[in-house]
């Protein structure tokens, strides 16, 4: 039996808190990391890096950001893209305007700026609840986009409003090759993913979930609801800001304000629906799904149907299938791919017994 917890007793609370409680899981994770760092850069090609791996990683991070806010703290947001935009444009400007600032520092400052903006747009959540709250996040969405299109200072007066990536150099190493961009993205995502796991399994994460599940009760047991909500907005936006900067600089290499429009916010929302709300792993699964699914579908149809269907029509079908899949997920597995994965693991654990 591969998947067995026999003999692995948890003897200390500290150990019980570990992310992977089983030895097998820890090994698998280490192997995955080793693979991602050592093998993938050696065997990947441009297409894999630029069209699949980097976008999956960046979108996972964005999903993670939204998940912290929506999945854990229960505040529905349709403005994720706005915070990504803030992150991207802030990073760009920090790098541009402060001579000699290391790239990573600009990135973190960009993220912090996004966090600050998120905090401001989170303020209404102290009074507004439920669906009414989406007005605040949509206000962020439209307002931020307007600011970046209207004030060309943010894009260094480029006539087209498009910003382009600064040279990606860290400690003197040039990371602008596809593999380099991939490694940079991977590192940021792994680090922040780990941090997110720490947060949600700790005191702060519990407070978020408490506020999500019932804020009156949370207040009654002494949790400061306003502070908790605002922290959720700030930290979530920090993540989204970093994701936005990576989107602009390691993925596309350029971005315009329109690149962070409402449909991007929806895309990120779909990632967490499909992946699973209130799950860290889910973001990765969801992002992978959302990137790979359309590619797969169009690849399959081009190779199988060989042009029998008009590509535009195909895209229509794909849109419909995608919508149907979302509904299907909500009906069959409201907790997303993460739950599917967990159930599979559980089955494996008790296999060959039935429940």
């Amino acid at each position, binding site marked *: 039996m591969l998947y067995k917890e026999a003999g692995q007793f948890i003897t200390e609370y500290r150990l019980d808190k570990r992310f992977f409680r089983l030895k097998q899981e820890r090994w698998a994770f280490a192997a995955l990391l080793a693979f991602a760092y050592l093998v993938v850069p050696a065997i990947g090609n441009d297409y894999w890096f630029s069209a699949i791996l980097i976008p999956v990683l960046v979108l996972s991070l964005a999903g993670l950001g939204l998940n912290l806010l929506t999945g854990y703290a229960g505040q*529905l947001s349709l403005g994720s893209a706005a915070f990504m935009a803030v992150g991207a444009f802030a990073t760009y400007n920090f790098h541009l305007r402060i001579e000699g600032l290391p790239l990573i520092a600009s990135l973190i400052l960009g993220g912090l700026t996004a966090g600050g903006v998120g905090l401001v747009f989170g303020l*209404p959540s102290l*009074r*507004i*609840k*439920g*669906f*009414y709250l*989406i*007005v*605040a996040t*949509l*206000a962020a969405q*439209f*307002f931020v*986009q*307007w600011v970046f*299109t*209207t*004030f060309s200072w943010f894009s260094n007066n480029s006539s087209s409003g498009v910003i382009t990536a600064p040279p990606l150099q860290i400690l003197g190493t040039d990371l602008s090759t596809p593999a380099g961009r991939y490694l940079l993205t991977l590192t940021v995502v792994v680090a922040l993913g780990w941090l997110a796991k720490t947060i949600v399994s700790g005191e702060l994460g519990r407070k978020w979930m408490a506020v999500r599940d019932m804020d*009156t*009760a949370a207040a*009654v047991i002494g949790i400061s609801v306003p502070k908790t909500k605002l922290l959720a907005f700030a930290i979530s936006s920090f993540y989204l800001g970093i994701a936005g900067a990576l989107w602009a600089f390691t993925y596309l290499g350029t971005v315009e304000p329109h690149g962070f429009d*409402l449909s991007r916010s*929806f895309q990120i*929302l*779909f990632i967490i*629906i499909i992946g699973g709300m209130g799950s860290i792993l889910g973001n990765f699964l969801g992002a992978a799904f959302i990137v790979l699914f359309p590619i797969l579908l169009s690849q399959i149809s081009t190779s199988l149907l060989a042009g029998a269907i008009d590509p*535009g*029509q195909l895209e*229509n*079908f*794909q*849109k*419909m299938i*995608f*919508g*149907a*899949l*979302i*509904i299907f997920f*909500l*009906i069959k597995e*409201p907790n997303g791919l993460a739950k599917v994965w967990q159930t599979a693991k559980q089955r494996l654990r008790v296999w060959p017994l039935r429940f």
Partner: protein
Amino acid sequence: MSFFFEVLTGGLLAGVMYSLVAIGFVLIYKASGVFNFAQGSMVLFAALTFVSLVERGVPFWGAFVLTLLTMAVLAWLIEWLVLRPLVNRSPITLFMATLGLSYIVEGLAQAVWGAQVHALEIGINDEPYEVFGILLSQFDLFAAAIAGGLVALLGVLFNKTRIGIALRAVADDQLAALAVGIHLQRLWLIVWAVAGFVGLVAGMLWGARVGVQFSLSLIVLKALPVLIIGGFTSIEGAIVGGLIVGASEKLAEVFIGPLIGGGIENWFPYVLAMLFLLVRPYGLFGDKAIERV
């Protein structure tokens, strides 16, 4: 001064156009607690179906009835395939399902009718009237009259009939509604079909105004602040909200826009709605959430 009033009346009339879309939302929210993001796609779908039928030579009323039937079938499919399996789930789940739904409907509309832009003439000439030096759009006046009629009709439906109570019951607690024997499915079918009808009316008017094409589905974004200011659960709120949003955004664009860069209409209503909510967290006429411990 007359320019001010011109902008104001223009804004108020434009606001009624937003209300038309918002009403469809309110209807569904009130009836099932579902925040239906697909309302915009339904408007698009209805308008596209109607205009395509007209272009294929179907007479006006024939096309209207056929489209209405199509919307009813759509409502039935939605009830059967989406709402029924999701009964008694959290509002946020249903909201997300409607996001999925909007994808399906948009894809379907384009797959069936193509992506071209269509002109739609519904026989109202839009030469402006001039009253005391203020321009009044014939078309917008007509649209306002229709919206008024719809509101009156729906007001009666909600407030004066048993269906009204049943709908509100469903919105409150689906499990309990089931337990007292309310036919959720039948009710939903009715409501979604009526929302389809409202969508068709909105789609025809908007289509005649801006042409029938994909971005018709984006007018939900104009309807949202209207809805929020008025309150999700109030039809009258949708009208009042529309007037407020329409008038204020036009005035803001004309008088504040030039000072801070112009093009502020997209976010202004949202910020306005946000300020409204800070004072009234459930909009002007919305039901308060009841929480007892």
